[in-house]
């Protein structure tokens, strides 16, 4: 239940954001700041490592979709990896799996970026 810590790991042209904690409305500004920073530096290939994510709010999901959409226009994307079963259940019931690409492992998500 703690506030989300976002740790960015550079991987060539790609960034892996490791999430640890809860992404609720209170810690939403942190996510926004991290995504904005990526956008400003034109880095639009992102994998979210959600192994340590225990909660995600609709605002955060919306921000991820927004980023993914813009990134796709630039031949990039934002993909999710290592979602816990309960978070995956939520994402699926909300229909998110149709909008964001979800992988089991981080390296699968990384490899799925072509070019």
């Amino acid at each position: 239940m703690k506030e989300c810590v976002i740790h960015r790991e550079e991987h060539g042209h790609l960034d892996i954001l490791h999430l640890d904690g809860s992404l609720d409305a209170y810690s939403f500004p942190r996510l926004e700041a991290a995504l904005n920073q990526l956008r400003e530096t034109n880095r639009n290939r992102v994998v979210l490592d959600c192994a340590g994510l225990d909660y995600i709010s609709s605002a955060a999901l919306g921000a991820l979709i927004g980023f993914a959409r813009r990134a796709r226009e630039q031949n990039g994307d934002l993909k999710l990896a290592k979602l816990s079963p309960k978070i995956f259940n939520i994402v699926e019931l909300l229909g998110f799996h149709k909008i964001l690409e979800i992988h089991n492992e981080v390296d699968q998500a990384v490899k799925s970026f072509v070019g």
Partner: protein
Amino acid sequence: MGHEPDNQSHGGMVTLYTPLNYSYARIIRQAIVDLCVHAGMSEFKTAQFEMAVDEASSLIFSAQERSAPEIRDAALPGELSVRLYQDGDQVVVELCHGGEPLEMGESASPENWFGEDDLEATGLFVIRRFVDGLSYQRGTPLGHCLRMSKKK
């Protein structure tokens, strides 16, 4: 010996009062998760109800923020009362607040989510998706009350 009291179903109502402030959302989430697990709700359903309650709290917090910006800076910006209890095979949450009532309008499905746009619509989508019972009553003695229930 008489009747068989069903203390499990009408047992202990949990009441919390929190300021209308996002930093308290996690305590509300903790309370609802604890009660759901204690009631025997499955992990997935607990997570769903947790999210619905959190989204509802956020709706109330942001509605108050919009209506009275100075509330954000106040030490005790008004209160949200949170009541959690079991009722038969359901877990029930009642959120009561003062100030401006919620609009409770249309939901927006994920295809239309952009993050910056209508946050209330996205929150409502989640709530409606994840609860079994939903009602909102304006102007009760306890304030405007949002009641959500979910079967165990």
